[in-house]
């Protein structure tokens, strides 16, 4: 029984590239770095989603969804503990 997916349905499974700065099993800081980098990029490029697409894709892959949701809520409420672009 030869099972082969039609090429149109080929799915490439990948995540963020290996980053030597985050060499340990715990990738939490890696996720955090991309999340902050994405928002910094959006700020610098006037919310150009295409320019920052790779960063968004990486953080969406690395970060638990709950974390992203909670950080987005904190950003809106002004209580985000991390770096907010444009803030001293």
């Amino acid at each position, binding site marked *: 029984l030869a099972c082969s997916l039609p090429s149109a349905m080929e799915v490439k499974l990948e995540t963020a590239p290996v980053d030597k700065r985050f060499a340990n099993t715990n990738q*939490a*800081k890696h996720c*955090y770095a991309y999340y902050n980098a994405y928002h910094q990029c959006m700020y610098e490029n006037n919310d150009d989603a295409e320019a920052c697409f790779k960063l968004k894709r990486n953080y969406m892959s690395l970060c638990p969804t709950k974390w992203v949701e909670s950080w987005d809520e904190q950003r809106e409420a002004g209580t*985000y*503990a*991390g*770096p907010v672009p444009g803030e001293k």
Partner: protein
Amino acid sequence: AIGAVMYFHSHRGGEVMLFAGLLATTLSMAIWWRDVVRESTFEGHHTVVVQEGLRNGVILFIVSEVMFFFAFFWAFFSASFCPTIEIGAIWPPKGIECFSPWEVPALNTMILLLSGASVTWCHHAIVAGKHSNAVISLALTIVLAAIFTGFQLFEYSSAQFSISDGIYGSTFYMATGFHGFHVFIGTTFLAVCLARLLSFHFTTDHHVGFEAAAWYWHFVDVVWLFLFVAVYWWGGA
């Protein structure tokens, strides 16, 4: 301890238990050491061997106190070397207005260092048999200790953050708070020594109680130096 726990958790009778416990402990210490002074100064039982034993005992006690502070410094460094994402992965955490180390903390450092010098002066005066010098230098040490405590209380009252303000608040106040308590103990010890000095309890070659107080005071000073460098300077803005 039970009283303190009851008090913290607002159980009925907590304050009474805590106060009773503290009173019992303080009275036990006072009566115990009163007896030690009676046995030594008044009854002459503290031979050279006994004195050596007491010195060793005091040193070991101070070593155990070092262990105690080691724990709080561990907690501080554990929190601050690799700050968690929840506080923004930076130290000090966002929103914490730290003390500038170069204002009151630096002044307090100078005060404690000077008090370390004056207590050493006192020891030299005792050994040289210079009674009035010893009284002046020990009184100076106690005054400096009181000034230090006063400045710390002022800092605490004007602080922009409390012990409840996250891990920064917890580590800061646990470390500096216990240090302050040890300053109080050390000051009391020195005050007792001053009272004994004025009563001519110490001779030029037999003053173990004073030596113990001076060692304890130096220990308090060294802990402050570590606190200053780690918590105020490195750990500050």
